[in-house]
């Protein structure tokens, strides 16, 4: 489904050039469940951003369904991010001034659907992550685990083919981490959603089909 070929990512400022990723080759197939591991700063999040079309590689090619995305215009990339990719961030990135249901609705705002339909779909996604009773709470009224579940609901509300999770359990205790992991497994197994998860936790990585290991921006396994 998504394929990275000889991908390199370099961050440049006036004085410093930092190579974040070097010569990455990775293929994520439909229904796959991958984990990405490696020490902090090894390029895991950068890799996830490239797969999620949130960033562009400095060299190499990112292909979606066999087509190189480099030349795609913003409108097409935005549509793909909206309809085919769901992103879960380590720091949740919830909008604090919006209720849970409004946060979850955000991806649907960029589709053509009625307000009622959006609301029903968002509430269904919130039910799915077990937060039905919290739909009208603000993020600040929720625990960290609940906030991450809201982020999961927001990522799955648009029924994406690919779910990219950047340390989704990084800010949670092990119990809440397991709950989120169960949810990701369920999505992968019941709906065939491909999941790529960055984690530091060997135990969680062990529950995925395959683990990609990075070190200093290079793929070592």
């Amino acid at each position, binding site marked *: 489904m998504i394929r990275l070929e000889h991908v390199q990512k370099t961050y440049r400022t006036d004085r410093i050039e930092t190579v974040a990723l070097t010569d990455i080759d990775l293929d994520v197939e439909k229904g796959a469940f991958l984990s990405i591991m490696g020490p902090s700063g090894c390029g895991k999040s950068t890799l996830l951003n490239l797969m999620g079309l949130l960033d562009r590689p400095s060299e190499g090619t990112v292909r979606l369904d066999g087509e190189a995305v480099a030349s795609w215009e913003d409108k097409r990339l935005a549509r793909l991010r909206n309809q085919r990719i769901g992103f879960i961030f380590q720091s949740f990135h919830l909008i604090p001034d919006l209720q849970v249901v409004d946060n979850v609705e955000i991806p649907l705002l960029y*589709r053509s659907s009625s307000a009622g339909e959006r609301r029903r779909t968002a509430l269904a996604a919130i039910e799915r992550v077990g937060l039905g009773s919290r739909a009208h709470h603000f993020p600040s009224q929720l625990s960290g685990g609940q906030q991450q579940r809201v982020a999961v609901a927001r990522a799955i509300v648009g029924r994406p083919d690919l779910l990219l999770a950047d340390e989704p359990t990084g800010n949670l205790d092990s119990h809440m981490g397991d709950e989120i992991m169960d949810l990701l497994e369920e999505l992968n197994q019941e709906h065939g959603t491909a999941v790529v998860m960055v984690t530091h936790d060997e135990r969680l990585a062990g529950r995925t089909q395959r683990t990609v290991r990075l070190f200093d921006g290079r793929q070592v396994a």
Partner: protein
Amino acid sequence: MTRHLLKLLWNRRSANALVGLEVLVAFLVLFAVLAAAAHYWDYYRRPLGFDPTDVWAVEIEAGTDMAEPSALNPAVARFLPELRSMEPVVDAAATIWAPYRQAGWTTTWSVGERSSDVRLFNGSDTLDRVLGMELLRGRWFGPEDDGSGRTPMVVNEAFVDALVDDGDGLGQVIVDEDRNPLPGGGEELVRRERVIVGVVEEFRPKGELQKPEPSAILRPRLEGELSNDDYLSALLLKMRPGTPATIEQTVNDRLLSMAPEFSFRLQPLEAARTEYLQRLTPLLVPALIAAFLLLMVALGLTGVLWQAVTQRIRELGLRRAKGATLARIRRQILAETLLLTLAATTLGGLLVLQLPFTGWFPQLRPAVLIPALVLATAVTALLTSLAALYPSWLATRVEPAEALRWE
């Protein structure tokens, strides 16, 4: 999406209050500047009631003061036929003051229950021809009014509106009584009767920015028993088009030969008009200050919006990660800014709509208030939209991944 934005704006009301306040200040400053401009423009575009083209004013002085009617008016009676006989003079008239002279004579007249301030002006029988004045109805006064016992006058429409109950005003008599102290003690009751013989649309001799108000042009007596009501101090000469400036000396010499006790100063009314408008140049100073103030407000607004958007770059990055296009993000920032502008200008509009009720700003008549309100709202919206352009560009120039890491 509109509902989503409204919810977002409402939930961030305390954070948006600063931007809203800035927009409100911009709106109020704009309104003040535009109301002043609309006030003067409204006066400027209204009819003057006369045409200064090819008219020369001859101001007559006796020493440094206005000459007494008893001394001047009989001389004026001799000047007028003499001047009319001169080439290239087409016609001549006498007035209390030359147009564009910033002098005035105001009184309060009452008719029945009605009472109004009236601006008075003395003008001789041919003033209408010299100044190209057009009557709406009635006639100009003339020799047929001699011996009627009532002073004939031509008034403007505002006079009729203010003092005439019904009808077109023609034939309306205005009675004016004064108690003058007598030298030996006691008082003398002076009763004057004036009658409207003609109505003009407007007459504003002081110039384009004179306030339109009830005005009356009275017929002064040139000979016989003269009083303070008959003051004159200027002659107006309608010249043939293209009359050279050298005529000034010829006319001056002729008048001096007839009445050496007076001095005469000639000036084309068009030159007097130019001088009058140049005297308005100091008005440019507050206009420049207002423009500078607006620039400061615009820069402040850009700064506040820039800060507000910068604080939200991560949120905007998230929206892009969830499928918003760059154009959509820019539209969102613009829409939020415009909704905030709408809220601030509505509040500002409600505030300024109260001003006429306070009675402190009589200039805020509908012809000033409504255009100023509409323009101030439109310009504020334009200003805030322009001010939002840079922050929206700033918010979308980075890739979503970078925006999500923004500190």
